[in-house]
């Protein structure tokens, strides 16, 4: 079975090592060093952070491998990079340069309107975004070793990540109270394999780690997502679009470790300067909402 094979287990194992940490978007070697020195468990190497992709428009693609290599050489922590949804040739390039984790990401412009990448064909692990449990399980069935909320990247607005995390958690609870005879019908409604749904009924969780992404801007946002069930936090535009990236990066790292210790979270939240400005979701036209990408 797919999810017990050693290839899959070693992919999930790296995700296990990232738990309780912060993964930061960086656009050059200097930012990568700042992230590592602030305690990031991993960096996401990107040409442009989501807030700028949103502002610039046009087609957003995989970053230049040369830039990614400069970032790989600058830090000792795992380096992630994004490829377009369905663009397995970009993923092959990222695997060839030894990237540690590939994010098949809705932040870039999708390359295939029907199919995501068959991630079982790769040795490198993949992370994918989801809006709900059905989408999470479809990605896991394709071989994703890590799931994250989509949120709404580049907005600095946490509401969408909260919606997606709550949806996944409440659907997991629902699976647990259903009778065995109801699971096939649920599988049809969720559009997800019944084998994975049965596994959730038994274990009470999805079979891979579950992280939060898309809109985290403050230590309080990070604490909120951890308390809603995230096991690690991705911070995209939130750090390097703020007034004092280094201080904010350290504060979010500290918060994720101590997220249930509110005195520590309060201390971490002090005097950070201006966070990124942020965008009200209602002001984003439907066709510009990144979370609608993927299926």
């Amino acid at each position, binding site marked *: 079975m797919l999810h017990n094979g050693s290839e899959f*287990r*070693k992919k999930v194992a790296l995700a296990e*090592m990232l*738990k309780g940490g912060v993964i930061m978007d960086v656009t050059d070697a200097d930012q990568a060093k700042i992230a590592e020195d602030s*305690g990031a*468990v991993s960096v996401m190497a990107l040409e442009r952070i989501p807030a700028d992709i949103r502002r610039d428009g046009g087609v957003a693609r995989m970053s230049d491998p040369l830039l990614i290599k400069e970032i790989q050489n600058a830090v000792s922590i795992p380096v992630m990079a994004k490829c377009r949804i369905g663009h397995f040739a970009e993923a092959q390039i990222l695997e060839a340069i*030894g990237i540690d984790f590939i994010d098949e990401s809705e932040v870039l412009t999708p390359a295939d309107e029907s199919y995501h990448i068959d991630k079982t064909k790769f040795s490198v692990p993949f992370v994918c975004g989801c809006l709900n449990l059905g989408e999470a399980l479809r990605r896991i069935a394709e071989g994703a070793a890590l799931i994250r909320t989509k949120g709404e990247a580049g907005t600095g607005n946490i509401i969408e990540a909260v919606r997606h995390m709550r949806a996944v958690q409440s659907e997991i609870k629902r699976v647990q109270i259903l009778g065995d005879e109801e699971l096939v019908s649920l599988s049809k409604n969720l559009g997800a394999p019944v084998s994975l749904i049965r596994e959730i009924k038994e274990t009470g969780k999805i079979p891979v780690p579950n992280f939060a992404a898309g809109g985290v801007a403050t230590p309080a946002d990070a604490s909120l997502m951890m308390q809603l069930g995230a096991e690690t936090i991705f911070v995209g535009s939130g750090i390097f679009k703020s007034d004092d990236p280094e201080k904010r990066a350290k504060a979010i790292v500290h918060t*994720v*470790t101590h997220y249930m210790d509110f005195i520590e979270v309060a201390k971490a939240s002090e005097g950070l300067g201006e966070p990124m400005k942020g965008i009200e979701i209602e002001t984003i036209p439907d066709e510009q909402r990144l979370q609608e990408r993927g299926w």
Partner: protein
Amino acid sequence: MKIGILALQGDFELHGRMLSTLSVDVAYIRKPDQLNSCNGLIIPGGESTTLTKLMRGAGLFDPIVSFAKNNPVFGTCAGLIVLATDLVNYNLDTLGLIDLSVERNAYGRQIDSFIDSVEFCIDGKTDFFEGVFIRAPKIVTIGENVKVLGTHDDNMVLVESEQVFVATFHPELTDDVRIHQYFVDKIRKSR
């Protein structure tokens, strides 16, 4: 018996799962005073750069060093790195509790991670254990008070001193509790 698990970052819950299987009480350690009731400590896998910074930030560095004078400590992967006296090619603020030098990410990047059989010899008996090596370090040299318990190819992957026990791989990522059992026994013997 109660064993503390450093819970700042990494796969600490998986170590907790192993100890629960062995019916040992667990304390997740985020603050120095939480060490007081413990008879041993586990430093889990994770990112060693992150772990050392968070240990400093939480004021746990010196308390762990003094705790280790009287109580056994077990580290896996990043936990090993954090416990080592010396790092090859990298500058990191480590606890220096076991006399060995270690090379970080010595096998390469994630695509070079692997699962393979580890040969280990405890109490004169040789046996095998499934070794999960994830961006794993390599032990380069060991001090004279450090004993090799396990090898993979020609690499030392499981070693111990009087108080400290370390693995370059992740026994907590299997369902096999023998290595955790060995640590529990080590604590019993030391008391």
